[in-house]
């Protein structure tokens, strides 16, 4: 009998992994939450929408089309199950929800390509209607043809910030300003690293130049103060060049780089390590995407550390190659590894130029909401620290931070930063929020399947 191989995630990593497995005679099951493949970066618009790929994906249109074409080639040769939400992994079984019904799928080998989401640093007012993640602002435009407001400010750090603002302006939305916590000088700190992917770096420079030409205010080295408004966004207040500035707007797109969606990797048995360059806990893998100390588990794409969409395609192929090699199918993937090294080098330069603003955690006002789900403030986390709690899961138990429906996806990183800042320790020493099943909300009767 052939090995039962399951891939979770239909983005660039998952699709390229599937393609390589199919090319070697395997018939993987491909589970994806979305109705259509592409992941978030190459998310397809709903049936019946008419924009051309260039309008949706800009300079990346050819890559998006190539991915969709690659999938069309293999679609009949694998078992694609869209609309599948995997919410638990028990031993070698995936527990998932599909069409509102609980299903279990056993596997011999599992490739997780679960992607990433925006990495957030809260600020007062960030729960107001009109504030979305940067990725969310892009999805509104790409998938729904909408701007998140009538006048949108972009706040954060990282390459997505300028890309999203550029996409909005180009599509005819009003961009109020682009504000980053990173200094302009940071962009020149590691020219060799940037040169490792000169074309991509040049695209970033192009977006900046366009925004400047369109007279969009670009503010760097800023300290975000708050988002103004009562029941909706009225403005963004930031400290820059020694003065407080108010940017009138009715929406804010917020994000400081990305964080890996690694909950399923944890439930599957991956080990985690704090990765200093990316300033986040990541599942440990070898150079081929094999999970350390967990046979049969492979991780690919941004779910196993952020390296971007191009690297995700390579990492999908590499993980599939490792899986095939482990099944005794000899395979050469040296070219993929050579290409991936350059993306890795580039990512190090990006993270250093546009880092996560950990330093903001210390001065967040006490009444700033950290956990949107449970309405837990920075002050409550600081109180827990003052009462002697030094580990983020103990703070979770005491305060309910990260205990809500999102399972700490949104608040986990900032919560740990606030705790570490109060304790005066490095953020890795307060630990990380452990993943708990179900990793996404499911009806009670779907959960009950195990015990009934």
């Amino acid at each position, binding site marked *: 009998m052939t090995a039962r191989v399951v891939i979770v995630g239909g983005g660039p990593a998952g699709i390229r992994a599937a393609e390589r497995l199919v090319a070697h005679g395997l018939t993987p099951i491909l589970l994806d*939450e*979305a109705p259509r493949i592409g992941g*978030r970066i190459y998310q397809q*618009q*709903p*049936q*019946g*929408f*008419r*924009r051309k790929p260039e*309008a949706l994906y800009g300079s990346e249109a050819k890559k998006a089309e190539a991915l969709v074409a690659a999938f069309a080639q293999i679609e009949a040769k694998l078992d694609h199950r869209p609309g599948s939400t995997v919410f638990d992994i028990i031993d070698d079984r995936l527990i998932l929800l599909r069409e509102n019904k609980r299903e279990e799928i056993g596997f011999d080998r599992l490739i997780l390509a679960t992607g990433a*989401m*925006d990495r957030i640093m809260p600020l007062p007012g960030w*729960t*107001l*209607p*009109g*504030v*979305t*993640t940067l*990725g*969310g*602002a892009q*999805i*509104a*435009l790409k*998938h*729904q*043809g*909408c*701007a*998140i*407001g*009538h006048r949108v400010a972009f706040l954060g750090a990282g390459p997505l910030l300028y890309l999203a603002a550029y996409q909005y302006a180009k*599509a*005819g*939305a009003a961009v109020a300003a682009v504000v980053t916590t990173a200094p302009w000088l940071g962009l020149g700190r590691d020219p060799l690293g940037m040169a490792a992917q000169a074309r991509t770096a040049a695209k970033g420079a192009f977006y900046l130049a366009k925004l400047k030409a369109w007279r969009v205010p670009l503010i760097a080295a800023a300290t975000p103060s708050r988002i103004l408004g009562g*029941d*909706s966004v009225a403005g963004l207040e930031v400290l820059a060049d020694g003065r407080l500035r108010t940017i009138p707007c*009715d*929406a804010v797109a917020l994000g400081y780089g990305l964080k890996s*969606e690694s909950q399923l990797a944890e439930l599957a048995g991956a080990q985690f390590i704090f990765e200093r360059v990316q300033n986040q806990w990541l599942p440990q893998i070898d150079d081929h995407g094999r999970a350390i100390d967990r046979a049969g588990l492979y991780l690919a794409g941004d779910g196993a550390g952020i390296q971007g969409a191009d690297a995700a395609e390579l990492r999908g192929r590499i993980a599939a190659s490792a899986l095939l090699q482990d099944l005794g199918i000899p395979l050469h993937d040296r070219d993929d590894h050579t290409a991936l090294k350059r993306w890795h080098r580039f990512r190090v330069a990006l993270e250093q130029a546009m880092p996560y603003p950990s330093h903001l955690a210390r001065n967040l006002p006490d009444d700033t*909401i950290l956990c*949107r*789900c*449970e*309405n837990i403030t920075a002050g409550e986390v600081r109180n827990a620290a003052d009462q002697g709690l030094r580990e983020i899961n103990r703070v979770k138990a005491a305060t309910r931070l990260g205990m*809500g*429906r*999102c399972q700490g*996806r*949104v608040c986990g990183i900032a919560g740990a930063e606030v705790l570490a800042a109060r304790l005066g320790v490095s953020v890795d020493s307060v630990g990380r929020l452990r993943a708990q099943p179900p990793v*996404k*909300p499911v009806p009670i009767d779907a959960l009950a399947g195990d015990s009934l």
Partner: protein
Amino acid sequence: LSTSHGQFRRIAERERRRIAFTLDGIEAQALEGDTLLTAILTTRGHLRIAEFAQTPRAGFCLMGACQDCWVATADGVTLRACTTYLAEGMAIVTRQ
């Protein structure tokens, strides 16, 4: 809360079929291919009232991760607004 002003602004794909639905009992219209989140936020300024904060919310991540956009149908089925498409005649309830 203001109900006359949509938070989202349509800037492309406006030539789609109109479909009718109700939002907290009020008749509304949106476009085929809209998610519930889009349908609601092009109609008014907020999506729901957060249960613990009692303040208006309008989702956050739009990608099925933050779970801040759950609404319900009139017959009690809960739905994540950012990943559910609007269907003709849906009766959406955002108040508990």
